[in-house]
């Protein structure tokens, strides 16, 4: 019997994502990939996976997943409210986020709602056994490619697992919640800042904008004061990098994210620094945002600093239960607390 996670109830917008489909933009193929690459990387590191392994990106509300494998280790990263584990004959028990959990056949992981953000991640130790399309497992739903059948997860989907049981390892957790930073979203002017008046550029960096309801994996439309164009809202289409902020004729900014088109014909006043893209990947409708401009050298340095902080977070993982031999008393106690029956042979090194 092959190992799988079965979707017994769908969430809202859950897709398989890795770090993106790289190298095909010239064919018009968007990169897609995780909206919050930091969280996906932490989830993969917790699960013991390489950084580029595909996981499940949870959009707003996650699915219920039935374990159809001897065992599976999952890492949950994000502010779930909380996830629950449910087994036949036992009441549902909460599962902490930002750590791994060992699940057994027949148990149901109820990922549930995300609080205070729009995305969270479930990584599976060993990864998912899905077909690679153009070098990536990332779902790009507009073209119906990648991930699971090129679409968001639906009830009765069966996600095949690469491993039929969880590899022996200790459960691990983040030492501290990752700090995404606060304050204004940092941007670099360009590529078409000269298509806006000085007053328009000032509006952009001085006003407060709100994430509108039109926010998805492609981008976020903001509500707020309109930005004045200097020479129309049409350019000859050029390339769109991650975080490009285009301003169509109506004057309101649209930040383009993972599923963004590869090229476009609206002038782009600025581009979000890559360090702050995960913050926008987590932003919810109604969220207030200010923008501040920095030089490209500073944006590059901030990104390198964020990478160092990710590396420190990974080095700072803690064991989620005592190391060493089997602590039967502790196991028994934890089973009572969280309702998970751990396989001693799998839970211990």
């Amino acid at each position, binding site marked *: 019997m092959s190992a799988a996670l079965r979707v017994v109830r769908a969430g809202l917008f859950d897709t398989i994502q890795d770090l993106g489909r790289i190298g095909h933009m010239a*064919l018009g193929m968007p990169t897609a990939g995780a909206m919050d690459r930091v969280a996906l990387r932490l989830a993969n590191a917790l699960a013991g996976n390489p950084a580029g392994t595909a996981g499940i990106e949870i959009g707003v509300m996650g699915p219920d997943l039935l374990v159809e494998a001897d065992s599976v280790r999952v890492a949950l990263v994000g502010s779930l409210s909380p996830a629950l584990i449910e087994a036949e004959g036992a009441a549902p028990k909460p599962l902490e986020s930002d750590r791994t959990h060992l699940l057994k056949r027949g148990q149901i992981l109820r990922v549930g709602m995300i609080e205070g953000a729009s995305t969270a991640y479930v990584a599976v130790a060993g990864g998912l056994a899905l077909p690679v399309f153009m070098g990536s497992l990332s779902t790009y739903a507009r073209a119906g490619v990648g991930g699971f059948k090129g679409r968001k997860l639906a009830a009765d989907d069966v996600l095949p697992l690469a491993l039929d049981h969880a590899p022996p390892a200790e459960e691990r957790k983040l030492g501290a919640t990752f700090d995404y930073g606060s304050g204004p979203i940092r941007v670099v002017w*360009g590529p078409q800042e000269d298509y806006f008046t000085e007053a328009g550029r000032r509006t952009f960096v001085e006003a407060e904008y709100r994430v509108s309801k039109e926010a998805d994996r492609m981008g976020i439309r903001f509500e707020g004061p309109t930005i004045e164009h200097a020479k129309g809202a*049409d350019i000859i289409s*050029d*390339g769109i990098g991650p975080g490009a902020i285009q301003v169509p004729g109506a004057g309101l900014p649209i930040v383009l994210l993972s599923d963004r088109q590869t090229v476009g014909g609206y002038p782009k006043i600025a581009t979000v620094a890559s360090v702050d893209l995960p913050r926008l990947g987590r932003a919810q409708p109604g969220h207030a945002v200010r923008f501040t401009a920095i030089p490209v050298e500073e944006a590059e340095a901030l990104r390198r600093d964020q990478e160092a902080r990710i590396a420190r977070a990974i080095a700072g993982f803690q064991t989620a239960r005592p190391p060493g031999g089997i602590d039967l008393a502790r196991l028994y106690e934890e089973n009572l607390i969280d309702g998970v029956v751990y396989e001693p042979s799998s839970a211990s090194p």
Partner: protein
Amino acid sequence: MSVRYLSCGDTAFTVEFGNEISPGINGQVMALHGAIGMAKAGGELDGVVETVPTMRSLMVTYDPLTTSRAELQPRIDALIAGGLSAGGTTRQVRIPCCYDDPDFAPDLAEVAERTKKTPEEVIAAHLGSAFKVYVLGFMPGLAYIAGLEPSLYLPRRSQPRVRLPRSSVAIAMDMTTIYPFESPGGWHLLGRTPLLMFDQRREQPVFLAPGDHLTFERIDRATYDAIAAQAEAGTLDWSTLVTT
């Protein structure tokens, strides 16, 4: 040759060869696209991730953990200074298009009004245009096709549509396009083709290629339905639409 470098944040920049659509400028773009690909294949330009050609510019994406804008820009300058050579293929492609169903052409009347033509004159001008595919982008398989009859030039809609149907044929500025998927879009819809511009089942999922010469061929709704059924079933003989 002088180029402008435009910032696209800390993971990309755009090399702009000009601010007009011309075969010469596009040829330079495609030549630099090729030259960077060759350099990368030869182990140079460490940290360059990929390049995205457009009508008049090339976006270069890079990994700021490996390299930087300051390090890359002089290297791109050196490639350009070393001389760029162009290449390419030419195909003639026929695109059947149904202009007659109002559901397919919701903007035909407005385009006619704004260009001071009758709808039939708009259709005739679109059919009479000598089109060429310059670049693919926006989404997989979407071609930017220049050569539109100048009397049809209009700016894009000020507010893009959030959703428009797959295979819509549209115009904006001096170009036409065919939307490969249901998608958002800001161009004026004049008709619909029964062809699929992107089909995962095909060995080459993307139908059009840069350099293709294109003409539209008017079909009625019954013909549209017949060809669309073949395209959906995957039985359409695409080779009859393309001559090399």
